[in-house]
């Protein structure tokens, strides 16, 4: 009578152990990685908007300042999304026949709001406030990226808590002069010494006191 197990069993049993162990570890690592990939952070994700609004064109070609439409950015928590009325300030004059703007005119005359899809979304329990960031010298680009290069706006920063903390712990490198807040192209001086000097100066001038205590954002 032959043995209980055939020699192959040794290999198989060891293999199966390895597979189980690797599987367990692999899953954890995969999960860990997922949230750090652009996919997990929903970066560069195509978002289809009801109206094909092109920031690129408005910012670069028409030189419209961010604050024209995002009127509240210096005064409140929300940057403000332009009303249909505001679109028509210009578009009652130009492109007022364009089929692309049909939805806008419809919204205006029927009185139904345009439902935009939110791209930059922080959780309900995180209270972000635009005005204070702008007032202390954080530019639009820092969080929203080169909107002037985006046909349709996509998310460029993870907006995770640790991402916020990173800057709140060392805001200096991200500061810019008040007149450059909405500038898309502005770059800090390339010379490290000058850059450091500017950062230090702005920290002082704007009296930046970035905080990391919980109630700064969670109330």
């Amino acid at each position, binding site marked *: *009578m*032959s*043995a*209980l*197990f*055939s*020699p*192959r*069993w*040794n290999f198989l*049993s*060891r293999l199966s*152990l390895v597979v189980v162990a690797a599987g367990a570890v692999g899953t954890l690592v995969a999960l860990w990685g997922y949230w750090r990939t652009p996919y997990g952070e929903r970066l560069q994700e195509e978002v289809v908007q009801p109206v094909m609004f092109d920031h690129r064109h408005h910012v670069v070609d028409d030189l419209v300042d961010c604050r024209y439409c995002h009127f509240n950015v210096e005064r409140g928590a929300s940057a403000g999304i332009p009303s249909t009325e505001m679109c028509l300030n210009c578009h009652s004059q130009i492109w007022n026949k364009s089929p692309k703007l049909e939805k806008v005119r419809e919204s205006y005359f029927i009185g139904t709001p345009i439902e935009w899809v939110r791209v930059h979304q922080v959780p309900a329990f995180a209270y972000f406030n635009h005005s204070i960031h702008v007032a202390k010298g954080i530019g639009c680009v820092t969080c929203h990226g080169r909107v002037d290069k985006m046909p349709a706006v996509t998310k460029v920063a993870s907006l995770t808590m640790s991402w916020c*903390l990173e800057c709140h712990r060392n805001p200096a490198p991200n500061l810019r002069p008040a007149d450059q807040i909405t500038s898309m192209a502005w770059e800090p001086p390339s010379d490290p010494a000058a850059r450091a000097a500017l950062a230090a100066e702005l920290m002082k001038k704007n009296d930046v006191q970035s905080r*990391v205590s919980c109630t700064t954002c969670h109330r």
Partner: protein
Amino acid sequence: MSAGRTLLGKYPDVDSLFGAARKLRGDGAGRLNFYSPFPLEGAEEVLGLRKSPIPFIAGAAGFTGVVSAVLMQWWMNDVAYPINVGNRMAVPTPTWVPIMFELGVLLAGVSIFMGLMALFRFPQPYSPLSEVEAFRSATVDALWLSVNVPAADVERTSDELRRLGAVDVQLVPEVA
């Protein structure tokens, strides 16, 4: 044991088992081993086994555990995100001790198990020995002695084993 074969001898009691083993070793026989349902007092000495590395493995792992516990708690609570919890003292704090101990024990224990598996080359459900039906008694109630011999010496050694008191001698078959 490339060309060699393995012989198994079953012995009625420990004394005859050990006696046989001593004799064979004296004669410079091949690799010897015992198989018994329970650990045999003094087998190490008879077979001349080296000290086991297990204590060292456990110690090293345990130490790693303790150190990593300190580093983890210090870095997470006092470096990565220092927070004032109820004005309780910062580094170093006695509150680290429990986790230092637990992590030490955990790593030591796990590594002992891993160590055994490695030393035994486990899992190993199959062994040529299990081809020998009679050998099943090794884990139940019998004492077996195994010796590796060159193919040529099989006959001579099996007689030897019998002479040294084996009640049963088995030749482990060649594995196909």
